[in-house]
């Protein structure tokens, strides 16, 4: 179970991590912990699955990759088989059900726009349902921080 120290670590480390030779020692100082206390707790939070990852969140397009959000309208009885097709593509990163007629929403990341189009065409061909592509045109804000 997380305690107040774990919560403080998560809240602090979502704000940004120093880039220097010994970053954990620096953050530990801010939290009044020793370096090894911090790294041990951080590793435990990762092992328990509270944290997904520790490290950088990349801007895919600046790395030369392409990413899009796509949606589908799938009747309940087809849901499982369609999900299996979608998740079978390695280019599909996240895939969520949402409360709407457009009930399946997933992120496709690939090396080129053509590769994204191939994935979309492949899903449509294999499921018989339309994939609605909603590519990003502007990013106004990326915070993705959660107070715990």
């Amino acid at each position, binding site marked *: 179970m997380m305690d107040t120290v774990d919560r403080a670590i998560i809240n602090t480390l*979502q704000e940004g991590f120093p880039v220097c030779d010994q970053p954990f020692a620096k953050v530990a100082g801010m939290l009044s912990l020793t370096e090894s206390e911090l790294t041990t707790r951080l590793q435990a939070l990762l092992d328990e699955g*509270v944290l997904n990852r520790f490290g950088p969140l990349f801007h895919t397009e600046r790395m030369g990759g392409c990413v899009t959000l796509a949606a589908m309208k799938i009747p309940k009885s087809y849901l499982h088989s369609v999900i299996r097709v979608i998740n079978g593509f390695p280019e599909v990163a996240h895939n*969520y059900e949402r409360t709407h007629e457009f009930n399946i929403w997933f992120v496709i990341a690939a*090396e080129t726009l053509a590769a994204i189009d*191939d994935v979309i065409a492949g899903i449509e061909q294999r499921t018989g349902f339309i994939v609605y*592509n909603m590519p990003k045109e502007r990013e106004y804000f990326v915070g*993705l921080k959660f107070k715990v």
Partner: protein
Amino acid sequence: MNTARDILSLSTEAMGDKEKRVVTELQHGLPITSRPYAVIASRVGLDEAEVVAIVQRLRQNLTIKRFGVIVRHHELGYRANAMVVWDIPDNQVADVGQKMGTFSFVTLCYRRARQLPEWPYNLYCMIHGREQQRVLDNIDHLIRSCDLKIFPHEVLFSGRRFKQRGAVYQYVEAERAVDLCPTARVGN
């Protein structure tokens, strides 16, 4: 967790060779050890100071959007996850989007292409909360504060999570990419 099948190939010219090697290593996360950049450096054949300089540069030019813990929000009790979509006139969407981003409860805000006639919405914001009612209250607050009452919107709460992983890229030499891409793309 990242099987070979989950690794995509990139042969972009957008970055230098040293940067690509560092990025490839960093996608799996930063080693949780006293001198993490020294570990990365030894894996990619650079020295620690070079790696630190590259990571600082990638942050400055925003190739790295954020650096730190990536939480599983569901596991942390953020179970009410709303994607709110808005139909905002093209000449106002930038102003509205920027304004939405200033609210602490908005975690992401993007402009996306419409899919007319079925999908008229062009502005997306994500609001995560522990309780659904709290999220709905925040949406009301947003509508009042940004004068959004006249614009159509819909709230899509997330249900089941069918897949969650980061997209992992593998930088390869341009000539090798030709061979590697088809393998990486097999969708079965």
